[in-house]
C-alpha cells in the first residue's frame, strides 16, 4: 500500500509536472529574499563591536554551512527511499542535489577560511565544525565520483545510495569525536557562539539570508533535477511528448 | 522434467536491444546450444539464466529453488598463484576431489599439477577451469565456449562427458562457435531476432 502510494507520487513524470509551475516562483522568491537579506546585512546592519566589518561574511558563511548539512540529510532520505522502495526519482534527486551540496559546502569552507584570517589569525583549525565540514565536502566529491564512474546508470544509482546512507552516520560521529579534543576548541575571541548573543539587528538579515538561500537552492535543485530527469528518461514517451 | 524456463526475455544495454522476447526452457536430459556471432549476447543470456544479470524485461523461473548449477564462463575462476592441486583443493570437498584428480589424469595434467598455474599453457589452464564443472555432480551445466583452446583429444573427452551426463538426466546449456558433438536444440541469436530450432 505504502509502496503503491509512494510510486504514484514519485514518478519522474509527476515530479516534472508538479514542479513545472512552481519553480519560477521559487526562484523569484528565493533570489529576492537573498538579495534583500544580503543588502540589509552588508549595508544597513551595524558594525560588530569586536570584529568591525569583517563579520559581515556571516551572511554568506552561516547560510551556506547550514545547507551544506541539510542537503546531505535530504540526500540520505532519498537514498533510503531509493533502496527500500526502488523509487527511481529519489536517485535522480540525489544525483542532482550532490553537486549543489558540494558547491555550497565549498562556499562554506571558503568563506569560513577567509573569515578566519582576520579573526583567528589563521585560515585553518582542526576543530569539530571545520573538520566535519571538510569531510562532508570530500564525501560529496566521493558520491559524485562514484556515480560518474559507472556506465550502467542503474548500478550507479544503487551504489551511490548505499554510500550516501553509510556516509550520513559519519557526520554526527565526527562532530562528537572531534569535540572531545579540549584544546582545539574555537578560540574565545569569537563573540558569536549562540544565537542569543547575536544582536537582533544582525539576526534578522541573517535569518532572511538563510530563508532566501534555502529557496534559491530548492529552485536550483528543481532545475538541475528536471534536466537530469530528461536526460535519463530521454526515450520515454512522456519525455518526448513533454519536450 | 523441466529444469527452468525463460519467458519473454528482453535485454537492452544503453538503448541497444540485444535480444527481444526470447522464451525457452530446458528439461532434464536436454541440451541447448546458443549460437550467434560475436557480441550477439550469448554470454549475457547465460548470465541472465543464472540470475547474475537481470533482464530488462521477462522472467527466468527455475523449477526447483535449489537447482544445482555448475557454470564456467569466459573467466576461468582459478587462482594463478596457486598450483592446480591447490586450486582444486580450494574448490572441492573430499568426494569431488577424487573425481577432479581423475580428470587431471585424463586431461594429462598430472605432470604439471604442482606447477604454478600461471606457468601452465593456455589450454592447460582452460582444462583446469573445466574440471570445476566436470568433477561436480549438478543438475544443470552451463558452459560458455568450453571448447576454446582445447586440443582435439580434450574436446572429444568433453563431448563424451557431456553426452554421458545428458543420458544421466542432467540439463546442459552451452555456447560455442563450433558445433559440439552433442545432440542439441539450437537457439540462434541474430542481430535482431532469434529463432529456436
Amino acid at each position, binding site marked *: 500500500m505504502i509502496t503503491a502510494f509512494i510510486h504514484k507520487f514519485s514518478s519522474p513524470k509527476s515530479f516534472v509536472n508538479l514542479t513545472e509551475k512552481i519553480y519560477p516562483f521559487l526562484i523569484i522568491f528565493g533570489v529576492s529574499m537573498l538579495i534583500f537579506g544580503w543588502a540589509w546585512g552588508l549595508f544597513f546592519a551595524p558594525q560588530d563591536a569586536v570584529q568591525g566589518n569583517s563579520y559581515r561574511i556571516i551572511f554568506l558563511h552561516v547560510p551556506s554551512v547550514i545547507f551544506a548539512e541539510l542537503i546531505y540529510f535530504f540526500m540520505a532520505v532519498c537514498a533510503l527511499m531509493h533502496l527500500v522502495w526502488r523509487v527511481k526519482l529519489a536517485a535522480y534527486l540525489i544525483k542532482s542535489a550532490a553537486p549543489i551540496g558540494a558547491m555550497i559546502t565549498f562556499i562554506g569552507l571558503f568563506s569560513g577560511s577567509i573569515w578566519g584570517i582576520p579573526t583567528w589569525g589563521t585560515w585553518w583549525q582542526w576543530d569539530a565544525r571545520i573538520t566535519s565540514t571538510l569531510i562532508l565536502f570530500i564525501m560529496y566529491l566521493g558520491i559524485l565520483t562514484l556515480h560518474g564512474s559507472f556506465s550502467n546508470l542503474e548500478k550507479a544509482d544503487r551504489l551511490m545510495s548505499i554510500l550516501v546512507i553509510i556516509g550520513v552516520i559519519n557526520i554526527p560521529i565526527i562532530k562528537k569525536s572531534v569535540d572531545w579534543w579540549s584544546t582545539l576548541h574555537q578560540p574565545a575571541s569569537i563573540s558569536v557562539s549562540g544565537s542569543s548573543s547575536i544582536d537582533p539587528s544582525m539576526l534578522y538579515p541573517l535569518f532572511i539570508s538563510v530563508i532566501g538561500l534555502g529557496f534559491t537552492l530548492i529552485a536550483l535543485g528543481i532545475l538541475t533535477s528536471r534536466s537530469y530527469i530528461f536526460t535519463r528518461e530521454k526515450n520515454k514517451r512522456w519525455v518526448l511528448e513533454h519536450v | 522434467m523441466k529444469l527452468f524456463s525463460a519467458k519473454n526475455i528482453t535485454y537492452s544495454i544503453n538503448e541497444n536491444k540485444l535480444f527481444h522476447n526470447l522464451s525457452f526452457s530446458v528439461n532434464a536430459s536436454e541440451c541447448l546450444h546458443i549460437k550467434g556471432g560475436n557480441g550477439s549476447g550469448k554470454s549475457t543470456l547465460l548470465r541472465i539464466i543464472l540470475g547474475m544479470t537481470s533482464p530488462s524485461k521477462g522472467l527466468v523461473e527455475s523449477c526447483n529453488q535449489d537447482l544445482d548449477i555448475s557454470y564456467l564462463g569466459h573467466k576461468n*575462476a582459478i587462482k594463478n598463484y596457486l598450483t592446480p592441486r591447490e586450486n582444486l583443493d580450494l574448490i572441492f570437498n573430499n568426494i569431488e576431489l577424487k573425481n577432479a584428480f581423475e580428470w587431471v589424469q585424463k586431461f594429462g595434467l598430472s605432470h604439471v599439477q604442482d606447477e604454478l598455474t600461471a606457468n601452465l599453457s593456455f589450454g592447460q589452464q582452460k582444462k583446469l577451469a573445466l574440471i570445476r564443472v566436470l568433477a561436480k555432480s549438478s543438475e544443470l551445466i552451463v558452459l560458455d565456449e568450453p571448447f576454446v583452446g582445447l586440443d582435439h583429444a580434450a574436446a572429444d573427452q568433453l563431448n563424451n562427458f557431456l553426452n554421458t551426463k545428458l543420458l544421466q538426466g542432467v540439463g546442459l546449456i552451452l555456447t560455442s562457435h563450433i558445433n559440439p558433438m552433442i545432440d542439441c536444440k539450437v537457439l540462434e541469436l541474430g542481430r535482431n531476432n532469434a529463432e529456436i530450432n
Partner: protein
Amino acid sequence: MLRLIKAESFKLSKKLKSWLGPLLIMVLVLIAFPLSIDISQYDLDKFYFSIIVVSLLMTAFVATEGMFEEDFEDGSLEQEFLIEKDFYKVVFSKILVYVAFIGIPIAFIGALFSFANGVAIVSFAKILLLLSLSNLLLFNLFAFGNALSINKGAMLGVLTALPLALPVIILLGRAIRSIQFDEGFTAIIALMTGIGLIISAIMPIIISAVLKTHID
C-alpha cells in the same frame, strides 16, 4: 563458513604480496619517521603515537587494497555467488581472515614500536588491543570502499572510505591519550568494541549487496 575461512586463509597465505607487504610497510614507516627528523627523545615520545596511528591508517589502506578485486576479475566471485546462498558469509570470512592475519600483526608491530619508545609494559596489551580494534574497524570500512570501487581503482576507494575512516583515527588518538593519562580507557575500549561488533556484523551484509550489484 569454515570452508570459506579456510579457503581465504589459504589464499592469503600464498599471497605474500598481500600479507607480508603491509607488515613490512608498517615497520619501514615506523623506522622512516625518526630518520626524517631531528628531534629529542622527549618530543619523539610525544609524537610517536600519532605516527603509529597514521601508519596504521595507511597500512590498513594498503592491506585492503584490491581485497575483492582479484576474485572479481578472475570470476571466482561469480562462482561463490552461485554456490553460496548466503553471500555475505563470503565477505565476512574474507574480512575476518584479513583482520586476523594482517590487521592484528600490524597492530602488534605498532604496539611493539610504541613499547620500544618508552611505553610501560602494562600498556603494551592495552595498546595492542586498541590498535587491533581500530584495524577491525578500518578493515571493514576499507573493504566497503573497495567493494564500491571494485575495478575502478584506489581513487574511488580513497574518496569513499577514507572519510569514513577519519572518525576511527580521531577515536584512536583519543584512546591513546587516555592510556597516557590513565583515564577513561575502559569506556573507550567498550565503545570501540561495541562499534566493532556492530560494524563487523552489518558491514558484510552491505558489502555483499554492493558486490552483487557489481556482478550484475
